[in-house]
């Protein structure tokens, strides 16, 4: 009898094994769904930061180009051969409309646009060609550009870099 019991394939160890299998399966499924949620949320945030970083890349390219043009124009005023600058602001305006909400400070875009509009744009649109007034207006334009460069170097560019670094750091933490 003792031998029969010890050789019983349907003993307590059989049922315990089945129960453990059922428990392990249920726990695995639960863990997978929880982990799946966390990873999905992390991935979404990572993509959002990447999208914001791409926006800032484009904004910086427009900003650096336009500032470069204005600096060349400023130099040309000193040599009295005025070079009219070309401003590229389309990507900046697009970024303002389409950047991921709540990630990039909208004031950054506002401050960047303010470097070029409305004052600089007004001068470029209204300086008449070939008159005495033009020379005086160019000198005034030069003073305006000096203020623009000062604000860009002291405030706008550092804040743009700060935002870029913050996004890079956040993206790195999520990888």
């Amino acid at each position: 009898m003792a031998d029969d019991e010890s050789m019983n394939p349907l003993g307590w160890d059989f049922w315990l094994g089945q129960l453990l299998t059922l428990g392990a399966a249920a726990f695995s499924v639960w863990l997978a769904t929880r982990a799946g949620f966390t990873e999905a949320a992390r991935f979404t945030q990572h993509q959002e930061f990447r999208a914001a970083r791409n926006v800032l890349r484009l904004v910086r390219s427009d900003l650096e180009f336009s500032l470069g043009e204005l600096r060349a124009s400023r130099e040309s005023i000193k040599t009295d051969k005025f070079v009219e600058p070309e401003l590229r602001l389309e990507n900046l305006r697009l970024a303002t409309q389409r950047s991921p909400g709540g990630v990039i400070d909208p004031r950054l875009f506002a401050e960047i646009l303010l470097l070029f509009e409305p004052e600089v744009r007004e001068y470029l649109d209204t300086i008449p060609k070939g008159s005495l007034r033009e020379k005086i207006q160019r000198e005034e334009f030069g003073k305006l550009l000096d203020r623009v460069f000062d604000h860009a170097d002291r405030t706008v560019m550092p804040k743009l870099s700060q935002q870029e670094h913050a996004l890079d750091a956040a993206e790195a933490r999520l990888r």
Partner: protein
Amino acid sequence: MTYRTRERLAFWLGQAITAVIAFATIWFASRLGYEEAIRYARYEEARKTRNRLRELDRELASNEQAIRAALEDWDGPGARNVTLNWVAYDRAKESDEYFLLDPQTTYALSQAYADWIRSAIEKIRNRTLATYRTHALNLSLFRERIEDSRPRLKQDLDKIEADVRRLRGGKPEVGVDPPEWPVPSRPPPTDDELAATKLAVTPGWARGAGGRYLGPLEDLSIGRHVAVPVAPRGPAILTWTMPLLPDGRKPARLWLCFTSRAPFERAYSARRHEEELRKIYSFEVPGDPRVLNVPVESREIDVVDPNLPLCWRWVYGFLEDDAGQRFPLSQMHAWKVGGGRGSSYLRLPGPQTIVLPVGYLQ
């Protein structure tokens, strides 16, 4: 039952149970997966709503700062080039998340982004008016709309942040802090301004509204009878168009009411709005009104406020004659103190100047 039979039974039972476990696991996974998908969808919804609110709050903060810079000095660079942004609001209105906001919040936002201010900003940019006075009144009203809407927005933001945390199971989120913008410093006072702060205070100022006014009323409008300062850093000179008194009457008392909010925002007619006008004449207006009055003998006076900075945002007042009738001070201005031709908003104290007390609003 032989051992072999039991073994076969155990084998097939094990297979059957494995199959049941497999089916049960798939069923359990699909149910749990469905619930987690719903939880994730709610989390995304809350997160996007939270991001929209953050964007709106930051845009309002940026607009508030631009208005503050514009109102800091009507001659300043911020005044004519004031730039306000509507991008976040226009995007929020197009989004599905807008419908998840509290209706009171959406109402406050519609006030903070009202269409009339867009056209007012266009007029500022196009320099349609020679004087900045009307623009300053509009910007001051707009600033109040923003100041009213931001606490509501923050309340909703806190609620939604709590929802996002709860749906994430309490796990912290990786965030990106916005950059901190420098606060522009105020220029030091000029010699004329310093001299104005040292003027002797006129004796006889009394505080208090003095009870309900029951005398005759005249039409009032914010455009003509209320002033905001040219430069809130102070000091300021208050002037107005001399009210005409009836024959035989003499000026007796000057009443000035200083408030932190617009005392009234529209025009009132003496024929149709008697109750509202009585309240305004009696200084029962919003914005924590501080009323000062002083006996006067002449109509042609101006008032110097020597405080640095000024403790008020709006001012209106009346000249009371010896019969107790109050005449509204119209075309009120709160000029900067100074001489020279560098600005059209400078005044120097005249021969008949009365000086407010320092710290009168404390």
